[in-house]
């Protein structure tokens, strides 16, 4: 069975880049545009891993991660955060919110897939 990835990013460009990369690597991809939509989509999509941006309208990545971790059903899902630069402070906040790992943007497809494989069985 294909692994399912939920991508949450407000940038259409990044969403599309993720989609192309993930589909090429044989993942099934579900998209959301921000944290609020991400939490909505999460219900009933059962992803194997979540890739989320930090800066988003309505609900940012930190809030989204906390939302996922609060949910009994989904709190064990690995979550990878997309950060623009290797900003230690942002990484730290994401980690405190419950992020599993991170990917630096602009991402290299191979590294993205590596990171996903690292956190999924």
């Amino acid at each position, binding site marked *: 069975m294909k692994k399912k990835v939920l991508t949450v990013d407000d*940038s259409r460009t990044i969403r599309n880049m993720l989609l192309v990369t993930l589909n090429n690597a044989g993942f099934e991809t579900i998209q959301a545009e921000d944290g609020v939509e991400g939490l909505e989509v999460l219900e009933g999509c059962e992803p194997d891993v979540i890739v989320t941006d930090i800066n988003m309208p309505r609900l940012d990545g930190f809030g989204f991660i906390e939302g996922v971790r609060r949910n009994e059903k989904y709190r064990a899902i690995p979550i990878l955060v997309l950060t623009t630069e290797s900003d230690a402070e942002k990484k730290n906040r994401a980690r405190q919110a*419950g992020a599993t790992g991170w990917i630096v943007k602009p991402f290299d497809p191979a590294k993205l897939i590596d990171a996903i494989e690292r956190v999924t069985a």
Partner: protein
Amino acid sequence: MDMNEIKEIFFQECEEQLAELESGLLKLNDGDRDPETVNAVFRAVHSIKGGAGAFGLEELVAFAHVFETTLDCVRSNKLEPNQDVLKVMLKSADVLADLVTCSRDGGSVEESRTRGLVKELEALANGEALPAAEAPKAAKPVAAAAPAKPTDDSGFQPIPFTFDGFGEEEKVVEQFTYEVTFKPTRELYSKGNEAALLLRDLSRFGEMGIACDMDQLPALENMDPEASYFGWKISITTPKSEEEVRAVFEFAEWDCELEVKPAEASEGEELPMIPVPFDLSSLDDEPAPQPETAATEEASANVVKAVNAAVEKKESAAAAAAAAAAATQNNAAAAASSAGQTIRVDLDRVDRLINLVGELVINQAMLSQSVIENDNNGVSSINMGLEELQQLTREIQDSVMAIRAQPVKPVFQRMSRIVREVADMVGKQIRLVTEGENTEVDKTVIDKIAEPLTHMIRNAVDHGIESPEKREAAGKDPEGTIKLSAKHRSGRILIELQDDGGGINRERVKQKAIDNDLISPDANLSDEEIDNLIFAPGFSTADKISDISGRGVGMDVVKRSIQALGGRISISSRPGLGSTFTMSLPLTLAVLDGMVVTVAGQTLVVPLTAIVETLQPEASAIHSFGANQRLISIRNSFCPLVDVGRILNFRANQANPVDGVALLVESEGGGQRALMVDAIQGQRQVVIKSLEANYTHVPGIAAATILGDGRVALILDVDAVVGASRGQSLKPEMSLAAAG
């Protein structure tokens, strides 16, 4: 549109800007001192910088910034563009072109070349505006920013970057042995990490022996299912460096005790350990493994039980997964069907269709005309059929236009990111509120508003909203608000950008305009006129030059690009309360509903959207005001009368209003005017044909069209005519009597 396509457009623009830059510099070299030439040169570099910023082409941004700073000195007459100066500038233009090429095709510009020029440019600018920190940044080789690597079969271009802690894979044959001690805390698991997966990753590095430390495992009744009791001791032989070994645990480093050391050095105390064969195949094959179980099964039955308890939550999650499976399937089905409902179509094909429909509309109008001329009683079946054809044509046209209609949402979304980033950069707290994101407008319009809108947003963040301290001192919320809204209004799209900042500082704007010779010192300007000075080329009120909103190049560029779209932009500002920019744009650039009118023997088309009502003035309603002004009283309010024939120089004297028809129009500048025309011929949808390619911009005239009888009619630019009536006369060289 994918990243490559957007980027491709950026590079195409760069080519154009570079050509502009070079020809401008050459003109200056020939002794041309036209300020517009300097402006054009400056804008070319500024645009390249802006685009490069969006794609993170830092070297390009940094060099363009230095270049731009020096050009700004020329523009503000602080630096005389003599031969020596231009020599440096032309060289810089070459380097800029090389940097663009490198950003696109890969490769790098010699660091010494860039660095030398940066120094020369800075020397020319007298170190006036440039922070020293820019220099080393600019001097970096371009290779790191060059994204063009061979594409894979998806057309995806990998962008080189460093993945924290990952090193290049070295071709070192030498093998090292490391002793790794790894003891996760419970947080590691709560964040979705999995010790077994990390160990699997590590095992890919080479020969690995592993032992599980279960000393801390309590009795079953004392066990916390979510606590972490195990630690591992690993011995691994690999060509990788210690850094790389540590990098495996990168995601977990805060949530575990980790020790990595070369094997020789580890002769310390040995923990009592049970050696465990680490079967990794099970991890790779099973879709939902229970890793701790896999690792410990053979070691101890107790442990198995314990681990089973520890992973209970996972099982319950799996159960929940099964329960939700039905919902998932529904979702997937819905997603699949919605995906099937959209197709990607090459824009050229849609454009061709639109052009053809435009021709069809003209053709249908011509056919109607000749049928009417040849069919006296007007009830023949041909006439009936034609009416149906007319309706169908109209529907086809609407449908074709709808193909190109897109919500403004993507553009608005991009703006919110820009607000966040720029606000961060300047240390302000700003909230962006958007409204009407789903308002649809033609794709060409959307593509073209993104850039001016970006300029305006950056300006609003940089200049509009005050610093939190200033805001607090003024009794305002330290967090500023920028509101971006879109709505349809009478066949146009209205985009409003509202900030609750300090508003336009009219004193300063006026002084600056006087300093820049934009107005004479004794000019008597209304508040509105002062506010609109910010759209003048070369105008800037920022005390310090910033990297963000540039140097005032923004607003005149904004105004031009909006006008090029057939739009208008205006500003209204209240001191201390903020400013509102209002842009009004046509929904489409292809067709227009117009009223065909006669003025001094000429046929003109007035856009229907501008007309509020039409009326035949009575003599008693006309009042003279001053020497030439006349007002018409409509329902007890007075409205200035504008003779279109007079304004466009179709005739020398004003016509008698009583003989004509008044079109009450509303212009974007605000306020109503009554446009006097001789007669109304009818109402018609017309296909817009631009005049600019052949006649450049003709003041007072927006475009032309072909009427049903094959005649060419000019489309009136209502706002320009209204503006002209306010005393901002159309340029004197415009004489349409000759053109018509």
